[in-house]
């Protein structure tokens, strides 16, 4: 990779889901340097839910100056990211992707690791919706 690459944040209701999907995406993107992926799952007390501060910290952690792509699972994960975006509490080039959580995460991490800009990372993740399984 030359120059900064897009960072990825995975927001799930479950810390283990976020971490596992991050691990899977990193593994499938391996073969060269892998883009920074941060998992932001669960509540501060270890329960199921969404932690706004953890999301904002994860976004700052993976921000290398090329933008940050956020993927979310359900309900409050989506709404909390949107609220943080409205409040300007995420890095300037942060974007919530409209993509399936696991498949979108793999596509985003692969694209980001290849050095794709934020628009292309978003397009790769969103395209995951078009992959039918039957």
């Amino acid at each position, binding site marked *: 990779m030359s120059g900064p690459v897009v960072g990825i944040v995975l927001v799930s209701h479950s810390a283990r889901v976020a971490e596992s999907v991050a691990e899977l995406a990193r593994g499938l993107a391996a073969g060269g340097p892998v883009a920074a992926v941060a998992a932001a799952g669960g*509540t501060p007390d270890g*329960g*199921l*839910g*969404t*932690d*706004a*501060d953890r999301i904002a910290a994860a976004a700052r952690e993976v921000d290398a100056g090329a933008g940050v792509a956020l993927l979310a699972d*359900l*309900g*409050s994960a989506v*709404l*909390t990211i*949107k*609220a*943080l975006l*409205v*409040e300007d509490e995420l890095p300037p080039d942060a974007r919530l992707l409209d993509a399936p959580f696991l498949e979108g995460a793999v596509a985003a991490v692969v694209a980001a690791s290849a050095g794709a800009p934020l628009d292309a990372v978003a397009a790769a993740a969103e395209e995951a919706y078009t992959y039918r399984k039957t």
Partner: protein
Amino acid sequence: MRDAQFFRRWMTVAAAAVEREADRLTELDSPIGDADHGSNLLRGFTAVRAALEADSAASPGAVLTLAGRTLISTVGGASGPLYGTLLRRTGKELGEAAEVSDDALRKALYAGVGAVAQLGGAAPGDKTMLDALVPAVAELGTSYRAAADAAENGARATVPMLARKGRASYLGERSIGHQDPGATSAALLLGALADVAEAS
């Protein structure tokens, strides 16, 4: 005119109402949600009370903005960003004035409810907090008590509705016959506003 103290009292009385009704909110959230609405809001409003005690927010707008920010970061469920956006947007609309008129508050709350609808992508009839909030802001021009009553009636009117948003929407027709917990907590918030307005 309403000053920062009025808005602090509103948040304190709302926190007390959430504390009193937390078990009922969680019970309502058991059949159609994930049974955490009461405990989530209790955690959020307890944090709001602490944040306001530790901060010298001196204008109505600053009080609501701080309360909204605190709810977003502490609730942990969808009601956090939704109520957080309601209060924060309302606070932003009120600006930095030290005192605001009832008319300005009415308009600000109207904008706040609009922001909630936009964030959640919901409309009245979807069995959400908007079924209490939308009729309430329509009655604010009459009186705070009329708005609180409209919210209460709106919450009760969610019982026969089919949920179209959130966790309850996965239940399809099985969501019918239960009062929406979010509409119920919204009625508590409006009830607290009416109590504080009548006492001042």
